[in-house]
């Protein structure tokens, strides 16, 4: 699939949830099982993306400078540092470790 086509379909797909919530009666989406699955699904997808983005490269498991960078990000999140600062700090840690130690 072409990336442009993917962008348009994905955008429409994400919008479909938003407009659905305005159109359906609230009882449908307010069922406890439905809302529990939805919130756990969000957690699972984000955690999976964290694993793929942090621990794999080129389709293989690869442990490198990203791990200490994620550790620093976790510490900064614990101290409620703003998102963009935390992300930039993680990039800096990984970049410096690669520059100095070739990790």
């Amino acid at each position: 699939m072409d990336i442009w086509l993917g962008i348009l379909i994905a955008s429409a797909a994400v919008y479909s949830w938003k407009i659905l919530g305005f159109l359906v009666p609230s009882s449908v989406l307010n069922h406890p099982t439905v809302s529990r699955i939805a919130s756990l699904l969000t957690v699972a997808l984000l955690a999976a993306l964290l694993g793929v983005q942090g621990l794999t490269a080129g389709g293989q498991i690869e442990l490198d400078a990203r791990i200490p960078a994620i550790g620093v990000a976790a510490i900064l999140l614990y101290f409620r540092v703003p998102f963009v600062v935390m992300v930039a700090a993680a990039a800096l840690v990984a970049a410096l470790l690669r520059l100095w130690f070739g990790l």
Partner: protein
Amino acid sequence: MAKQSSVTSISIGVGLATGVYGISFGALSVAAGLDIWQTQVLSLLMFSGGSQFAFVGVLAAGAVGGVGVGAAVVSAWLLGIRNGFYAVRMAPILNRVGLGKLIPALLTIDESTAVATSQSDSKDQVKGFWLTGTAVFVFWNLMTLFGAVLGDALGDPRAWGLDAAAAAAFLGLLWPRLVERQALAVGAAALLIATITTPVLPAGVPVLLAGVAAVVVGAFNWLAPKAVKN
């Protein structure tokens, strides 16, 4: 919400703070191989941070062809599901009819819903939704462009640690959701499943497989928080 901070200043503040991390989205999207236009269109049309990061994250993991882009589409779609629940909460507050629902639907995201629903006065709820939604939309798109141009100028994403930044972005989106045992267990299992299956499955598919774990745990309500059981 304290009366001394008006809904206007809260909305603009949230809009600025959220918009700023559009820089990271823009830079990471370009690092994932999308061009500046594709990156910008994602922020304009998809307009949901988690889904946008997921879409470019799956492509960054090497997803190509029908299966790869398809997996990116499905990941973005599934991560957008929470917006549907926000819309359910916003619909009676905004009370729009017909085509009047189209634009508020686009602006229904974490931040606009959070600001609106934390107001006690119903006029402030409506104002908070529109102001926050609009402010985030404007700043998010401006900062996306800035980040994309910046990322484009940087060159090799690995040398700048942008792959680590993408992982940190997912951790940051995940962090506030790890509030109880059930979410922690699902998160840990999903991370393991996606990582371990990456060498043997097409790129993008491990993320969706991990989503299955959440559906199973959620459907049977394993490790349920005690408060929910009664």
